[in-house]
């Protein structure tokens, strides 16, 4: 490939890439803001996860009974409050 051919090939590539970049298309994905509800649902998922894990570790023998009950109560309270807020938002 001579220098001239190289430059020509480069110019064609530049043109093609420019067309691709600036092609007028309106089907672009919009940047939706995350809502409080989205956030709470994610958080719920995580708390469920933590609770399941707590149950499992208890069964695998890592917590004494009283520790487990206290931990579970704490996590369940937190999750219940979260669920209450989720329900509230969903009704609104």
């Amino acid at each position, binding site marked *: 490939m001579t220098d001239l051919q190289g430059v020509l090939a480069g110019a064609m*590539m530049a043109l093609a890439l420019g067309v*691709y970049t600036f092609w007028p298309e309106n089907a672009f994905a919009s940047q939706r803001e995350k809502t409080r509800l989205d956030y709470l649902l994610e958080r719920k998922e*995580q708390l469920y996860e933590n609770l399941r894990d707590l149950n499992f570790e208890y069964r695998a023998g890592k917590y004494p009974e009283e520790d487990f009950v206290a931990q579970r109560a704490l996590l369940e309270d937190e999750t219940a409050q979260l669920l209450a807020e989720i329900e509230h938002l969903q009704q609104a």
Partner: protein
Amino acid sequence: MAAFGSFALLIALALAAYNLFAGVIALRLIATGQSARISPERLADTARRAGIAGFVAVTAAAFALVWSVFNNDFSITYIMEHSNRALPAPYKFAALWSGQEGSLLLWAWLLGAYGFVLRLLHKTDVKLYAYAGTILAGVQLFFLSVVNFAAPPFSLLKGALPDDGNGLNPLLQYPEMVIHPPMLYLGYVGFTIPFAFALGALMMRYPGEKWIRITRGWTMVTWLFLTMGIFLGMHWAYAVLGWGGYWGWDPVENASFMPWLTGTAFLHSVMMQERKGMMKSWNVWLIFSTFILSILGTLLTRGGLVSSVHAFAQSSIGDWFVAFLVIVLAVCIFTYILQRSHLKSEQRLESLVSRESSFLFNNLVLLAACFVILWGTLFPILSEYVQGTKVTVGPPFYNRVAIPIGLFLLFLTGVGPLLPWRSTSLRAIRRNFVVPSIALWATVIVCLAVGARPWKDGVFDTGNFYALVAFGLSAGVFTAILSEFLRGAGVIARQTRRNLFSAMYLLTRRNTRRYGGYIIHIGVVIVVVGLAGAAFNRSQESELGLNSTMAIGPYTLKCVGFTQDSNLNYDSEYALLDIYQNGKKQFQMTPEKRVYLASQQPQTMVAIHSVLSWDLYVVYEGTNPDTGQPIIKAFLNPLVSWIWAGVVFMVIGTFVALVPSLVPATASLRVPASLGAPTEPALRGGD
């Protein structure tokens, strides 16, 4: 082709610049809610497309270089210096990264490839990806500026066109060298992705911790590449450099190890953030540091600041990297200060006896190790600055300081999994420690009994002592991890009436991340056993005439011939050795020395016979000029193959951890579709 390559690089630079500036303007407009003539979201999308187009342009440039190598276009300086006609095809690929300019181009190409995938997946979270893509464009702009202006790979040779090139450095003419550097680079470069996500999430004050889940896969894949890159490098050093070892605490090795340590710390501590919303600032800085360390590593080794066996790629681009580091650091600090209120911890620690605190100590130790290595690497420069003389910080320093830290880390690897999340009392889990402790002490006693004692002739031997501790701890950690598997599988077996093996399989499937992680830990334990074997290395050097013998360990080496050979690429001399064990001939070895014709550089080719208990490692050192007979150096290196086996476990474990977990039977996480909530299946979290 040179003109096309240079042109393609310029196009890529322009596209990266557009990607960065259009991206910044668009995100700024969206953040401030200002209106403009063009929709900011449309502008952001053109920026994203520019990133994709930029990847195409860099690919074209990389292709141009490879094409020129294969067509022996010695009018390009870089190709003249790093290739020759007789070079075998796979090594022609290696020429792409055997020098400064080519490896920077490879770096830019890999970054482009990562960015390409990221920009294609942008619908996962459009806004977060827009931020990450823009930050990525900033990094890409730097690397493309360097390859365009400071280290152009397509610069043309002045003067007459030579018939043949100088050839590839013989050290690099080895199969691993075709995959080791790209792996390592994939690791280095890959950390740009979690960095971009973390910085982006901080800039946009991302609500919640979901971004961590989004980046988890990226971080693990990157970590895997870096791990494989490091171990391939070790294997290369072992098989090629011919001194019988695999790790010399060389600045270049250290440079790859430091981001590995902070990256590993990040993979652990990020679970605290995901589960409990803790340690947010810490994690942000861990990932910033990992990125900065991978750039610093490049600066250290490429900028000629420290001397190293990897001296084949030095130049004056140091200033560019210093400037880039300063800018990155400034952006990180500025963003952090501006947004630090966003990083308040939500929760607290419940107890010292918990998985959380074990993660804290794990981070402490990994970071301490990183500091030791950074300190050791930089101290010669500091010393020259303060007292005017350079000092050497070599293996004895690291062995003394880093090995105890490593052993402490190994200890934590065993303790951590036994502790549950949140809190518990020591009393409750004391019995979980019984079996691992028995395994530990039993191993120590067995080692002492078979002669692996920390003293020799009444003198205390530190190396042997560390090896003993490492063996004992490894047994303890292995048992602890195994008991974790069994305990978990036991619960499932009871509930579902399966046998233990199928329960273990189900257990792993249900929480791939945790049990994949444990498989990685098993790999680490196996690697440690292999490393500890080095305390018992033996070596023997001897001149071997025809039919004369030398003995090492259980083997007797008998020289049955020495001869010469040559091909287009190199001349070689080698010895034919018959290896006897218990008086019987077992196998033959042919250690070799080559002189590469193009570069006129000599190179040893080690012969290695590897079994589970040790490697017989034989080097052809040359011939005695007086007698004309070959000098053979033989090493008996215990347990080396364990290192490579351990890495296989680490790789498997990472793959397991990358597989999405099965959702348990109570699939209650599904949110009714009417809510418009994300429809992706809920992932199993945990660690």
